């Protein structure tokens, strides 16, 4: 037990977050729980608005100001980020965990060059009296390790002088430079072209192997998640509906939502695509009482509408939040 605890770098327990939207409360995250082991790649996959990014922001405690954490905790190396002292939180952000954003163009400050942003961040991550020269070298090394050529020129460049792929590489370099162990990647290739996305995903995988990192990969693309995670959580409307080893979940899906989602993805095999999932994502102001998927679920029974289903382990390491998990195909 002690051994497995030590092996877990991040644990999210029953996290519930809502937002104050013009005086009304939007209940977004409802009891999110997952664990990330060291050197593991964990995926969060779901459609837009399901709370993937909110979950990542909660991990670093950088939620927007109108967010309210109702309950639950985020344990980074055993410490709750919501209860950490400011100093501890700063240390965790500086050397523990870092985030890669979906759109690298908006994640970099447009009026500062890469050097200013990179070195400032490094200055606080490294011991106080690290000479400027050393910081510079660390940055150059990091840019080199994300396979950006001509690093000195990149350092002097403003974001708009770089292509999307280069900006994303620079962001990755900033995230890994200070020796962070946990990388939170929020759709790191989505805003880029397919061939460039492929390069970025390969790069993250390569770095993960080389530097023994743990990765939380967030994406709306089942393909991306299948190809670059070991363990996956399927999210729907602020809840985790199914989780388990990636292969298990993808090839032996149990939750009605997972199945429906899979059938919607166009396949290279060209067997046509389904007609989609009926209905819409629920309104977070008045979320369904029971299972949040129940209004759209073809298998829903009375109980699904009234009571939230438990997250049950239906086979070793494969968890599903559905009363009828075994019966659905």
């Amino acid at each position, binding site marked *: 037990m002690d051994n497995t605890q030590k092996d877990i770098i991040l644990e999210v327990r029953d996290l519930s977050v809502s937002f104050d939207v013009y005086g009304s409360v939007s209940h977004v995250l409802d009891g999110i729980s997952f664990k990330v082991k060291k050197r593991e790649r964990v995926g969060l996959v779901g*459609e*837009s608005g399901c709370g993937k990014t909110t979950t990542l922001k909660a991990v670093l405690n950088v939620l927007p100001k109108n967010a309210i954490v109702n309950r639950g905790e985020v344990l980074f190396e055993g410490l709750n980020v919501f209860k950490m002292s400011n100093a501890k939180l700063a240390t965790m952000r500086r050397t523990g965990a870092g985030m890669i954003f979906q759109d690298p163009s908006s994640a970099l400050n447009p009026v500062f060059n890469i050097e200013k942003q990179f070195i400032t961040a490094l200055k606080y991550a490294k011991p106080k009296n690290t000479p400027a020269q050393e910081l510079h070298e660390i940055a150059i090394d990091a840019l080199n390790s994300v396979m950006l050529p001509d690093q000195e020129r990149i350092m002097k460049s403003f974001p708009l002088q770089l*292509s999307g*792929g*280069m900006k994303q590489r620079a962001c990755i370099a900033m995230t890994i430079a200070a020796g962070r162990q946990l990388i939170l990647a929020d759709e790191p290739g989505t805003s880029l*072209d*397919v*061939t*460039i*996305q*492929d*390069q970025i*995903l*390969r790069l993250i*995988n*390569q770095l993960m*192997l080389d530097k023994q990192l743990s990765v939380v990969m967030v994406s*709306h*693309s*089942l*393909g*991306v998640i*299948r*190809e*670059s*995670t*070991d363990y996956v959580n399927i999210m729907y409307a602020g809840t985790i509906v199914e989780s388990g080893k*990636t*292969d298990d979940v*993808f*090839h032996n899906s149990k939750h009605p939502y997972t199945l*429906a*989602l*899979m*059938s*919607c*993805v*166009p*396949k*290279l*095999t*060209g*067997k*046509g*695509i*389904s*007609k*989609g*999932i009926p209905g*819409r994502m629920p309104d977070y102001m008045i979320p369904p009482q029971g299972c949040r998927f129940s209004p759209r679920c073809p298998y829903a029974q009375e109980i699904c509408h009234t009571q939230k289903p438990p997250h049950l382990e239906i086979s070793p390491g494969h968890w599903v939040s559905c009363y009828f998990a075994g019966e659905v195909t």
Partner: protein
Amino acid sequence: MVEKILDIKNLKKYFLLTNGQLVKAVDGVDLEIFEGETLGLVGESGSGKSTIAYVLVGMYEATDGDIIYKGDNIAKTGLRRTLKQKGEIQIIFQDPGSSLNSKRTVGKSLMLPLQIHHRISKSDMEKRARELLEWVGLPAEFMDKYPRTLGGGERQLVSGARALATNPSLMILDEPTSALDVSVQAKVISRLIDLQKELNLAYLFITHDLSLMRNVANRVAILYLGRLCEQAPTAEFFEKPLHPYTQMLLSSIPVATAEEEEMKPVKILSTGEIPSPVNVPLGCAFNTRCRDKMPICMKERPTMKEVSPGHFVCCHLFNDNTYTRIKAAAQAPAGELQPKQQ
């Protein structure tokens, strides 16, 4: 005999920037579209796929080349084409957020083309607008709704209904679902496919998503920096992709099943950046990223070769009437392989 409705020959569209640079957004593209079929046009950013769409609908005038639509050359008419021609070629735009005016109801948006093209009474227009909504599978209550209360998929369907208002024979779908979630995309696409059958529409389907293309197109054409690389019937295209860029593109697609993984023919690791369309490389446009490049690729622009009936490749590696490459494929550099999931 299926009629050819659109014949694009050697289409060129250049833009002159105010700083004097010339952007060759589309540089000599040949395409044909037949009645009732779907031609898939695939490309990444800077490939000129949207520019082709905009020239076809008349937003831009072509710099050179011909677009023969049912016997008339509409390449250089721009917006001056006849009302009938405007009605015949319609478009659904990519961004569901901006394709409908947020201050006008769905009904008003639908009635605009009716008003211009049909000159019928107000009550007839309303009736027709309801009918259009029904066609795309939306309830008539949508007439009085504002776009902001609609989901992205619904907005795209309304755009579809609006495009159908003028009884087009060719619809240009400019990445109609790339901003949507897959479950919504499935809904919109299946509706569009049904409509195509019902109305015998021809689609020019533009996208960057090859998996989607596999499921909707009869033929596929790949664009890179304003030039066509490869064009083939869909099944053949995915079985025998020939152009090095096509192969790179195919192997870059993240796929959701192991079955599809098998479909990825050769593992060609994606390398390099897409050059800016301002500086298209000399010779073959792809030579900066091509693993198999030869000296000739740096100097001479390749021409289209028909390797088998209907399958065209624009690459120095190939000759007419044969799948055989001139040069064997290079090995992937060791040590840079993707860590396969165990």
